[in-house]
């Protein structure tokens, strides 16, 4: 296994639309992540962030290129890949008619977490995320804040080394968003590799160790915030982002693409 928990190489996803022809949602991107790192994918809506993360989670299969998660190829061993990552997004919901505890136990089992230790793990997570009080309450009876906590616990119930968070703060209030950021920091401190997508600049600035700016399916820049500042001469991430995206758009126009 390589030193990098996540290695992405020339990953490409092309869709075919009956009316618009080929759409390059992800266009030959490459990057790698180290343990205990939060890697941010920063891009506007439709830039290709979610498709990239879905490819890494093997929800979709790539058209070209590949990636490895903990040494498992997303094309060859999709099941093993999913077994060692946790995926969280605003659209990954919970089963409304299960209780919080049943949810954690169910996801632990189908992610092949050792059965003997599952109960203990569920107790630990319930305590850690403060869901003990409503662990036996059905998900559809919980508030959105409670659901968010259960959802995070669901993501890490099988203790995966790699975590993917796709715009996790979309639709959350300020306090919930801050709580999410805190949780992400804690996971990083535990040595987990986190790939985190957002279009909120302040969030990326605060959390990410490295940032990849993605636009039209391509990565335009990938470095630490400090290095990006040096490269562009801009202080704020917003300016840095705009500079890269506008530069790319002009290039696209120049080449007539």
């Amino acid at each position, binding site marked *: 296994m390589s030193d990098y928990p996540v290695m992405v190489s020339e990953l490409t996803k092309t*869709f075919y639309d*009956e*009316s618009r022809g080929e759409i390059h949602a992800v266009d030959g991107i490459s990057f790698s992540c180290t343990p205990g790192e939060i890697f941010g994918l920063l891009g506007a809506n439709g830039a290709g962030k979610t*498709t990239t993360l879905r490819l890494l989670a093997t*929800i979709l*299969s790539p058209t070209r290129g590949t990636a490895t998660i903990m040494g498992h190829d997303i094309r060859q061993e999709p099941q093993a890949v*999913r077994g060692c990552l946790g995926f969280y997004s605003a659209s*990954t919901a919970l*089963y409304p008619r299960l209780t919080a505890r049943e949810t954690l136990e169910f996801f632990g*089992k189908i992610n092949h977490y050792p059965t003997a230790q599952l109960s203990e793990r569920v107790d630990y997570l319930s305590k850690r995320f403060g869901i003990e009080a409503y662990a036996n309450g059905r998900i559809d009876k919980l508030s959105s804040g409670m659901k968010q906590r259960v959802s995070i616990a669901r993501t890490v119930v099988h203790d995966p080394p790699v975590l993917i968070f796709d715009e996790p703060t979309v639709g959350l209030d300020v306090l919930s968003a801050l709580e999410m950021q805190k949780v992400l920091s804690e996971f990083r401190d535990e040595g987990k590799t986190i790939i985190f997508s957002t279009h909120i600049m302040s969030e990326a600035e605060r959390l990410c160790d490295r940032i990849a700016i993605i636009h039209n399916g391509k990565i335009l820049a990938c470095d630490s915030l400090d290095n990006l500042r040096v490269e562009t001469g801009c202080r704020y991430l917003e300016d840095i982002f705009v500079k890269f995206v506008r530069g790319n758009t002009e290039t696209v126009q120049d080449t007539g693409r």
Partner: protein
Amino acid sequence: MRLLTASVLELFRQEIRMFLRDRRAVVLSIVLPLVVMPLMLFGSYWAEKRREKQLETVTYQYTVIQDRENPAADAEFRAFMDLVKQTVEQKRQTEPAAKDKEPAKFAVVSAGDEAKRLADGKLDLYIEVAAALKPGQATRKSPKQFEKDPEGGGPFILPDRNTVPSLAICYRADRDSSRHAATELRSLLMQYRRDNRQQLLRMRGFNFDPKEFGKVSEHDLATKDQASGLYVGRFLTLFMLFFLLIGGSAVAIDSIAGEKERGTLETLLTTAIRRSEIIGAKMLLVLAVSLCIGLLQVTNLIVYFGFKLIELPKGLSVAISPGTAVLLFVLFIPVFLLMSGLLLYVSGISKTYKEAQLNFTPLFFAGIIPAIAPMFPGLKLRSVMVLVPISNISLGVKEVLVGKYDWPMLAVAWLVNAAAAVYVARRLTNTLSQERLITSSEKDLADLRGGPELFPRRVFIWFGLMWVALLVVAGNVESLTSIWSQILVNVVLIFLGGSLLLIRKYRLDVREALALRSVRWPVWIAVVVGIPAALVAAHGAFLLANLLIPVPKKMLETFGEYVFPPEYPVWSLVLLIAVLPGICEEVAFRGVFLYGVRRRYHPFVLPLVVGIVFGFFHMALFRLVPTAFLGVVFTAVTLLTGSIFPAMLWHAGSNATALLLSRWKLSPTELTWPYFAASAVVLVLAFLVFWRFRTPYPGLRWRAREKR
């Protein structure tokens, strides 16, 4: 598909738990059918009994319209009615079977304005006496008296032929009491007539019951179980699939389409469980729920039979041995898995719950129709039918119930259904890898912009509407019975008019959409040579299809006379049958439709799709295969030449040739296999010419790509 891994069983366990906790689903799928069915049956049983009771106590009001030529008819008819009632009452007292039934009571009321009074409910019926009995013809002697004194002259003197009484009972079928009164009176009169006839025969020396004369008796050599097996076998698969579809639809729709809407499917797809395991668990869920519902419904039916709420047909024996029950269960397993898979597939290809509900209707019919195969006389499992999923098991079940086991064919049928179930499960697994199907995506730019970008997504809907228009308007409007009006409405208005409207609505480029391009000259020669060859080959395809669904010769002759009516001059038929369809139908199918679907399918699949759709537009089932075959040929030519014109010439030429052959009384039934072989060779040669001088249709999709 993996059915019994730990993950499958765990997911299945959770799915069942969630289903049982979903009150709405449980109520709709299990409780409601269980409660509604008995309520409906009790209700209708009670209502029927009550109605019968009420009708027994009613005295029906009627009046008699007198015959103008015979003013005494009224009084005579009353006397006649008295006699009728007397006879019937006597019969009631002597025959125990008639005792339970109270005879209907009638009371004559004054005449005048009968029709209005009948409409207003003030009268139950009135009787028009067209030619009344002559006074004195009927005596007041009862049949009993007559039996005692047969020599003294009977009451039943044959009337003169010209004075045979003729009664017209006028009633209203839209009123229960009126309809019932008419039925009762009719049966009263018929009973009287029967008795009267018998008495007359006795008078003439016929001294035994006429029923005994020339008596025919039947002896059924089949056992009671075999006879019942045939009866039950015709419907069993149909009933089972009906229960499965009704019971499993709610859970199947919720299981994938519902999960998409709720976002839980994406969560599941990010776990270590395999796609095939997800499908396996969901198929088990649908199967378990639908079997449970089916079992409850069958138990329900047995209870109703037990309480005699539903009467079993006479002589029906429903005793099935345990061995037969096990065999039936084994036979049903792959069919149930196939149907569960299809239900889930419909759910899988739908982005929302609502869309899945809409898609369920065609699946319901597609699933039910093959199961009616045992109702067709002459269809056997040991035929090509063994390869048709669902139909083959339906036929097999019937044969098993009749007691004729054809083990090799049963095994083949089982394997065919199992293979179909695996195929559907694989297709279903693929739907879990397509982004547009994983999430319930929102509208995109093409939806907002409309125009040519949107047309490919709407083309099937529009052609579906055109098909419905054809079915409804052309098939049901009586004024469209002549060939002229049929062609004008079907071909010109629906096909040409509909196509032009689509071009206008979606702002399509006319030249592109209709493939208006010139072709090289050898193409025309190949088309002319290919016309008779394709026609012969299409007839060959028809004969092959005829092996599967035999078409009565009479039907073909009638159809031929309808399409090529002999009273029309040839020139007008050439215009109607050849030229207009050649232009209008090609504009619709090889023009607009092909343009709409050109990127949806691989170019090798396109002719099949367009051909089959073209075949379906010819409505009659027996025309499906030959017209679809010609549709495939026309589409292939269009794809190779990039132009609609060769297909237009071919279509028109083909129809004109068929017309002329019909006029010259040349029947294709004379054709033997050398003709079919020769036509195939000529067709291949023609297509080699198209290939050599090809100018391919632009914008085709040669590589298989994942749809968004």
